């Protein structure tokens, strides 16, 4: 193991090197570009033995990865924002075909207006595309997820593509000291990809076919079961990961100081770091506050969220996303989880950080302050729009 000073992008690239995809197809886009640059260098220097395909678009990036996966090769691609939207057609293709491709998405605002900075509207707008969606907080988690994502996606009962989301710039371009495992450790963790869902010279198959109304829904049902199986696969992967690498992750969510908390802020991605610091500061003042970081938006941690929020007085969701004409999508999902569990906790929805707008510790404190009223509130952080959006 080596300790290196790496940006989120670089850490992820190191993780991909260790996972050893056989085909990488990618198209550059800010702020993802450094990942594909590093991977190109690794291929050039020989530390990564992969076919690096310089595709002419994101649509082709994912289409090419699907082709590689369709012959049983481990495939990787990376994108961001407009690029993710451009490949949207291929997202449902990959999930419907049950191809366990891993993609890194550098979360970035979507045009218009043009903006290269981070928010999560790109990936969250594609939440229903059938991919596992994980949101990491720091460079170490990014590297570790590069390895774990393949383990989870490639489990036979899962067979679902995996999108690892890193906040653009805030995480992709920020340097942190990161443990980079040895290749031997990585190989011990991650077995080779074996599947029968492939074109095979020895057993010819027809793939990606049409299915009429009679059986189409059965295929969709199986696809849904597949992504739900990822919950168990995440647990298994993290247990195995801890045994080999000594780092323990916490499943679909990470609860921080929530055991006795009265007020909990729910968020995802790198902003969780600032929320954690704010929680610590408020705790020093004796305030019973906590953080619930959602790590996986799909499969959605309904049960885990309900468990953490069962005894709180109020909670808020802070997300870098808005479903125009309704509310934040994470907020909708959290409310649904609580409603299904019969938990009547008032939950507020805060939209923040769109287009890279800064979220300050004071604003986070302000959310915790608002929660004390135990009233539902929805607003654009720092702008207004207060009220119940009903």
């Amino acid at each position, binding site marked *: 193991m080596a300790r290196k000073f790496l940006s989120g992008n670089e850490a992820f690239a190191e993780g991909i090197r260790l996972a050893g995809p056989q085909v990488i197809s990618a198209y550059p886009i800010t702020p993802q570009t450094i990942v594909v640059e590093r991977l190109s260098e690794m291929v050039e220097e020989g530390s990564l033995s992969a076919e690096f395909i310089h595709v002419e678009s994101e649509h082709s990036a994912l289409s090419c990865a699907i082709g590689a996966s369709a012959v049983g090769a481990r495939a990787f691609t990376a994108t961001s924002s407009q690029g993710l939207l451009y490949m949207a057609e291929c997202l449902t293709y990959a999930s419907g075909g049950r191809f366990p491709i891993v993609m890194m998405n550098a979360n970035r605002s979507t045009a218009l207006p043009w903006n290269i900075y981070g928010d999560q509207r790109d990936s969250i707008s594609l939440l229903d595309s059938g991919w596992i969606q994980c949101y990491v907080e720091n460079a170490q988690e990014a590297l570790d997820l590069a390895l774990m994502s393949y383990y989870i996606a490639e489990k036979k009962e899962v067979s679902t593509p995996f999108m690892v989301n890193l906040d653009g710039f805030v995480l992709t371009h920020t340097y942190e000291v990161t443990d980079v495992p040895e290749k031997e450790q990585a190989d011990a963790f991650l077995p080779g990809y074996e599947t029968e869902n492939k074109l095979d010279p020895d057993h010819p*198959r*027809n*793939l990606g076919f049409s299915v009429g109304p009679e059986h189409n829904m059965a295929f969709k049902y199986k696809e849904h079961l597949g992504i739900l199986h990822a919950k168990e696969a995440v647990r298994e992967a993290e247990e195995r990961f801890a045994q080999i690498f000594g780092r323990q992750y916490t499943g679909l969510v990470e609860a921080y100081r929530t055991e006795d908390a009265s007020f909990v802020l729910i968020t995802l991605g790198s902003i969780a770091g600032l929320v954690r610091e704010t929680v610590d500061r408020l705790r020093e003042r004796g305030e019973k506050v906590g953080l619930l970081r959602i790590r996986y938006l799909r499969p959605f941690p309904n049960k885990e969220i309900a468990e953490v929020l069962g005894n709180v007085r109020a909670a808020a969701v802070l997300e870098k996303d808005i479903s125009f004409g309704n509310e934040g999508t994470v907020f909708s999902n959290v409310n649904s989880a609580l409603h299904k569990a019969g938990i009547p906790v008032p939950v507020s929805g805060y939209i923040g950080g769109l287009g890279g707008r800064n979220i300050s510790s004071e604003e986070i404190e302000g959310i915790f302050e608002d929660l004390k009223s135990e009233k539902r509130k929805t607003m654009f952080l720092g702008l207004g729009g207060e009220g119940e959006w009903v």
Partner: protein
Amino acid sequence: MKPYLRDRIPETLAELPDATAYEAGYLVTKNAGWRSSRPVIHQETCRGCLKCYLYCPEGVIFQDGGKVKIDYDFCKGCGICRKICRFGAIEMEEEK
């Protein structure tokens, strides 16, 4: 080797594949019903040049023991074979 008719049609959830992947060349229906007329090869006129076999969009014409035959399960009766035959060895007969 060619795709051929199978006895088993996957129906139940357990029989359906988990992914959109299945054995190549798996046929469960014929195309015979599409025909309004059928090509008939007059063996005495046929020279075995196989031009009809080459130009058949369905690939249903084949040679068997020196004779040129047609797989009527999958022939759609398009009549290209009749037109392409230089020897007039193929005639179209109305399906009854």
